[in-house]
């Protein structure tokens, strides 16, 4: 229990620190992902806000993957739903903000229940493939630009007329959008934490470990799986809403592609599935590294490198994929797993503490 209190304290301190970042005008060379080497420069704040958004989405995704043991390949369906429904309601139909939000939640809920009910009829690998197929159908749908709603490949820009001035996409508002993204992450983390530590959360883990045993206890695994699917979808849609507010344009390849699904999966696995902070760390590492590598590759000195080094280094997708392969092979459990092993090793060296009995 002491560990949990420590974790919450650490998390709160980190959030407080991150909340202060837009106020810090410190000059830091090299490490920042933006083009300007100042901590609260717009570019850096934008990248950090993206980190928050995908950390939240990754946490929601992990309810399904890490806790319930369901490999879904369709989180973008719901992230994209959040992006597009919200964007369409505001920009195409001119709805007020609250109605647009309400519609986004309602559509996500219905879609999650319907698609979840269909895809959860199959288990394991088939579930992965079916969710992938639905995600692909969603991609085709928004790319198709039906009734000129989604803008297709050209994208759909977010109209700011119905937005409060603080959230409209102007550069000067990056600060408030940054805070909004941080609030989203804290909310997502809180919801996921409450659910996964509740009785329902324990059933989800039991479903992952042994579905038959859950049935023997008289519980219907299907209902719990559908609940996890829906929760994870709602969190993803929330991330989509904050994303479109931050970025301002919805393009299918950025918000509905399989690549994004795989990125979310990579974040969770890098960080450590089924851990309270792993997916957050994974998302930060992934997004930060991706943006940082893009910045480095755009620098003029980079072009003078020989092709052998330049070609692989200019592709974040290559480097992140390679890192991911190495993690899967050599770092099981990701960051969270590595930390847990390191702590176990430290604890075993300390003779004062009596070893836990039973499960040696």
């Amino acid at each position, binding site marked *: 229990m002491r560990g949990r209190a420590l974790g919450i304290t650490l998390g709160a301190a980190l959030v407080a620190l991150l909340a202060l970042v837009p106020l810090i005008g410190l000059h830091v060379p090299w490490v920042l992902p933006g083009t300007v080497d100042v901590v609260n420069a717009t570019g850096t704040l934008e990248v950090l806000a993206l980190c928050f958004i995908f950390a939240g989405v990754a946490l929601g995704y992990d309810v399904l993957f890490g806790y319930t043991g369901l490999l879904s390949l369709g989180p973008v369906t719901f992230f994209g739903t959040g992006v597009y429904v919200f964007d369409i309601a505001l920009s195409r139909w001119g709805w007020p903000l609250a109605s647009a939000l309400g519609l986004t939640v309602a559509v996500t809920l219905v879609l999650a229940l319907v698609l979840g009910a269909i895809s959860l009829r199959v288990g394991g690998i088939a579930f992965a493939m079916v969710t992938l197929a639905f995600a692909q159908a969603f991609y085709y749908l928004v790319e198709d630009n039906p009734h000129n709603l989604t803008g297709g490949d050209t994208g759909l820009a977010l109209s700011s007329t119905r937005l409060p001035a603080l959230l409209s996409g102007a550069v000067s508002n990056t600060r408030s959008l940054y805070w909004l993204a941080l609030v989203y992450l804290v909310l997502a983390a809180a919801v996921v934490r409450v659910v996964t530590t509740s009785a329902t959360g324990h059933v989800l883990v039991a479903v992952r470990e042994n579905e038959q045993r859950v049935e023997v206890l008289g519980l219907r695994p299907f209902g719990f799986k559908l609940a996890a699917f829906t929760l994870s979808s709602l969190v993803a849609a929330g991330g989509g809403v904050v994303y479109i507010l931050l970025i301002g344009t919805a393009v299918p390849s950025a918000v509905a592609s*399989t690549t994004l699904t795989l990125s979310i999966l990579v974040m969770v696995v890098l960080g450590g599935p089924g851990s309270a902070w792993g997916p957050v760390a994974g998302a930060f590492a992934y997004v930060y590294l991706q943006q940082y590598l893009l910045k480095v590759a755009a620098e003029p000195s980079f072009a003078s490198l020989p092709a052998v080094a330049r070609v692989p280094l200019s592709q*974040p*997708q290559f480097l992140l*994929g390679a890192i991911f*392969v190495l993690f899967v*092979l050599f770092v099981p459990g990701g960051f969270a797993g590595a930390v847990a092993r390191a702590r176990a090793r430290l604890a075993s060296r300390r003779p004062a503490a009596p070893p836990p009995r039973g499960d040696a």
Partner: protein
Amino acid sequence: MTVLADLTFSALALSAVYFLAASGLSLIYGLMDVLNFAHGLFMTLGAYAAWDLTTHLASGLGAPTIFALGVGASIIAGAVVAGLTELLLIRPLYGRPISQILVTIGLDLAAVGLLLGGFGSNSLSLPVPLWFFEATHWGALNLPNADFVALAAGIVVLVGLEWFLRRTRYGIIIRAGVENRDMVRALGVDVGRAFTLVFVLGGAMAGLAGLLNSVVFNGDLVSPLQGDGLLIFAFIVVVIGGLGSIRGSAVAALLVGVVQDFSNYYLSSHPGMAEIGNLSVVLLLAVVLEWRPRGLFGGTI
């Protein structure tokens, strides 16, 4: 009538490519429980290998010879890369199926990233004999030669695969392993070799599928993302056919090819339905799963 016949024929060619892409996936899954995301990469590399070889050969060899060599290159590239994937990435993770899936996802991301870096995201053009663009006339029918080639390749591979699975010792090991891997081991058979073999076989078929996909449906263009696009349909074919079943893959490939081609032809001209062919395939998947959650031929090879 002729429209119907032309359409059926092009649907068959599409089905043949889907079958080539899906049958290896299905065998790999059936034997090893590995959902191989790198299968799209094997297809892409097959097409690139053919492009690389055919654009570097002296044109004095003649277009048909060059193209035939390109076919060989695509098959060999797919087989070699797939075999190495199994030995270097899958093998260390035996007994951890989710990690095996993840490692293929990482490989696909990394390698496609490398292709994008090396060749750019633009498509490259394959040198293809002119004969492919011509059509054979049968009465009122106009049957494109490229479709013939795809269909012939699909049939040859289907027959060859059936022969291999039923007549050879390794074929029997694979069919037995799909049913019960542990018992095959307990009879003294090293199943690990069969694992490598299905990857090599699957990779060879995927390489060929990638090349044919470029020639028949992509206007001779090769691009880093083409395999990943095809992979989704291969997944759908595998699920509809039943994981692990070759005959299931063949039937499902026919079904998917026909549904996609026909709905494309008859419906896609309506406003807002340009993607109806692809969407109807997903709908087909949902219907089949509601009706038979294990696919059409689930559990048999």
